[in-house]
């Protein structure tokens, strides 16, 4: 099947996409956007979270063909190593992450949260991020990074 979609503001298309191919595999393998990571492939860990038409979505639980005509945002769309966005700067200031594997999913989940609620409380941040697993940090540094980004 053909898939046409917008990724990080850029029109992308692919032909002969297998209907069973997940959006995560499509992004990583077909579009070369390896910033999105796969941590469990059954929708629990949140590492593969991307933003689809404004909502944070687990790209391991969605098929690429379901994303036809959708607008997708991934970690690659937030900022570059030499020009990070304010959230990325705050996370760096807070030593938010360690190994970095869960990071893309957290960053997209947080991005979606802040677009919906620009000044969340710590409890709201914790509640929203409770579906993303980080094995390294104990979460406090991640929460601190979000609160720093919103000026709390």
């Amino acid at each position, binding site marked *: 099947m053909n898939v046409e979609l917008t990724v990080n503001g850029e029109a992308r298309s692919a032909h002969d996409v*297998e209907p*069973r*191919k997940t959006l995560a595999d499509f992004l*990583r*393998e077909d579009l*070369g*956007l*390896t*910033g*999105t*990571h*796969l*941590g*469990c*492939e*059954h929708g*629990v*860990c949140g*590492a593969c979270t991307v933003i689809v038409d404004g909502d944070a979505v687990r790209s391991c639980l969605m098929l690429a063909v379901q994303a036809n005509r959708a607008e997708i945002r*991934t*970690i*690659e769309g*937030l*900022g*570059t*190593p*030499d020009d*990070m966005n304010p959230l*990325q700067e705050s*996370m*760096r*200031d807070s*030593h938010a*992450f*360690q*190994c*970095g*594997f*869960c*990071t*893309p999913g957290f*960053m997209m989940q947080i991005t979606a949260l802040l677009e919906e609620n620009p000044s969340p409380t710590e409890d709201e*941040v*914790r*509640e929203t*991020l*409770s*579906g*993303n*697993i*980080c*094995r*390294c*940090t*104990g*979460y*406090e*540094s*991640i*929460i601190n990074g979000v609160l720093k980004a919103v000026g709390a």
Partner: protein
Amino acid sequence: MTATQQPMAQRFVGESVKRSEDKRILTGTGNYVDDVQLPGMLHAAFLRSPFAHAHITSIDVSAARQVEGVVAVHDGASMQGLLAETAQPPGIFGPAPVKFTLLASDKVRLVGDPVAVVVATSRYIAEDALQLIDVEYDELPPIATVEHALDESRPAIFEDLGSNVVTGPRTNTHGDVDGAFARADRIVTANIKVHRHQNVPMECRGVVADFDTDSQTLTIHGSNQGVGIAKMVLTGQLGMPPDTIRVLCGDIGGSFGLKIGTGREEIATAALSKAIGRPVKWIEDRNEHLAFSGQAREETLDVEAAVTNEGDILGLKVSMIVDTGAYPGMGAMLGGMVENMMPGPYSLEGLEFTFRAVTTNKATYVAYRGPWASETFCRERIVDMVAKELGMEPLEVRRRNIAFQGDNPGKMVTGRTLKSATARESLEKIAELVDLPSFRKRQAEARQQGKHLGIGMATYIEAAPGPRADGGGGLGNEAMRMRLDDDGIVRVFTAQMPHGQSHETTLAQIAAEEFGVPMEMVKVVVGDSDQVPFGFTGGSRSATMAGGAALVNARALREKVLEETANQLEAAVEDLEIVDGKVGVRGVPAKAKALAEIATTATAAGTALEVSQAFDGGQGGWSGGTHCAIVEVDVETGLVDIERYIVVEDCGKLINPAVVDGQVRGGVAQGIGAVLLEKSAYDPDSGQFLAGTFMDYLLPTTTEVPRIETHHLETVPLDPDVNFRGVGEGGMVVSPATLCNAIEDALSPFAVKIEEQHLPPLRILELIGALDD
């Protein structure tokens, strides 16, 4: 100030310098093993046993070979033909040698044991083809528990061992055990049980093997804690000369001890690439990971403590059994580690320690963040049990028993000096922070209202790396190379293979400060067996060992560069200084020469500005501390809420406080997971694995892990230069005992004696009698 000291302007050590790694990982530009995509790359998938213990009576892979896109299919027998004839069963370094093939061929020994592999043009096709492989099994009685393993009527998992006991029983005594027990007023006993749980890094294992048929060389893109170890294993397994294998690791998505070794699937993938002549990728999925990658703990410790009525713990008799799972390796040698550390910072008169390891049809025991940690769990639980029996505060029992510190420090009864241990200081700091009497008052009032609050604390010391023994005693060596390149960058070639520890930042902090350049002018090179010395990251050794190596090499390189510059400028070394990446005569900045220019001139003259010094650990020292938790247990639901969690730790001089805090919190979070959530569960009758998804194996999230209040002692400099100590494992070592002590305290109205480490809601309800056992 001597010529080789740096002006105070450029201090980095001790600062929470921002991480060099973060620009990559925050922008999705990291390079993890699954991100490696090579032209013509194929994908491997493994067929795994659904049974715990069975003979393979037949295997037919012919239908799988017919699937379009499938390039190769191998069963255990044919895979063996791709390995060196001299290849030994991998991963065994504990018990007597046992025979098995890389992929199971005669029998399967656990659920998840690999029996066949398909290589295809996509992972999807490879998994399709797996379903067409026909395997017939003849089930054997499973060895699903330690009791099964000790039951001689059940079959041996390894026939050549003839038994499922792989180590011991072996008993060692230290000090005056008989005297301690003779002088005791009472004996406190417990059967301590630490359940099976596991590392679970967010990135599973994986490898891309790329064999080049023209040059007959193999390039491995891996996810390992040491590139040199992976290279060594593959050299032996594939029978290739060492200079034809290069192992590269990019970013690694966590490990916690799991990825020290090279897995059977990684070896198979390398052998397949060599046989096919194309790159082959294998990425473990989460179900494979939970079932097969490795698991830890599952230890029982029968303990007798000889105690006086005043609360002195005179001696311990401990009998430990570890369930090492199938294909036992490190677990079979665990006893010595636990035994040596069992006294902790306490002044026992005697210790008797008996160790046995058994093999079962479960995942192999692997190192997990403080593999010896059961000594702390066992000892710190016993201390609380002693306190309870004597009606004393656990804090007081700890105070009474912590060994003398000061000018003539005590020794552990197992032999090691307690020089630099600050258990007492950390304990007193906790006492100062929590105000125990006022907590007890609040606890009593809360109980009146049906609220069950509890406080628990636990103390530990960790040999990270441990103090050098009086009169010598090795701490091991850490190799490192350091070079000033023509581009003016100081490159640090370290044996460490970071996977979250921030070595690219912390080693650069030390090297930059010692050498005298901004952080940006130091690059830490990791993960290339052609470039870095042999070694690995593990055992919380990197702070002292690699930190020290960075210090001594930067110092030596600075001397060398200053000497070279003195020649080039025709100046005296004593008059030179390094400022802003330039070397010049002090007070004459106009004549200063850029480091790049000095290096280029030196290179042209045939002088390499490179040093290579091993660091021997200096005086070393203990890490350690005391943790304290205040919890509320809901006796209706069995849920535990952590109201406050305090860490007082001592890892010597902090290199980067934010990195240290991150290590501490991460370890505590894993301890919280171990106690309240995580269990690698097996059916005790069939040996079937029951925790193969994240809906069964529960990890702590933002709603279970509280803020961790962290205090650093930074005391007792032992060494003139290097007083950084390891901090990676301590949080995980001591937090399970801290939490269980707090939970038992909360449940004291129910007279509950907690002997196990895993306390999910259902278990708490059972313990208080609200549910049947």
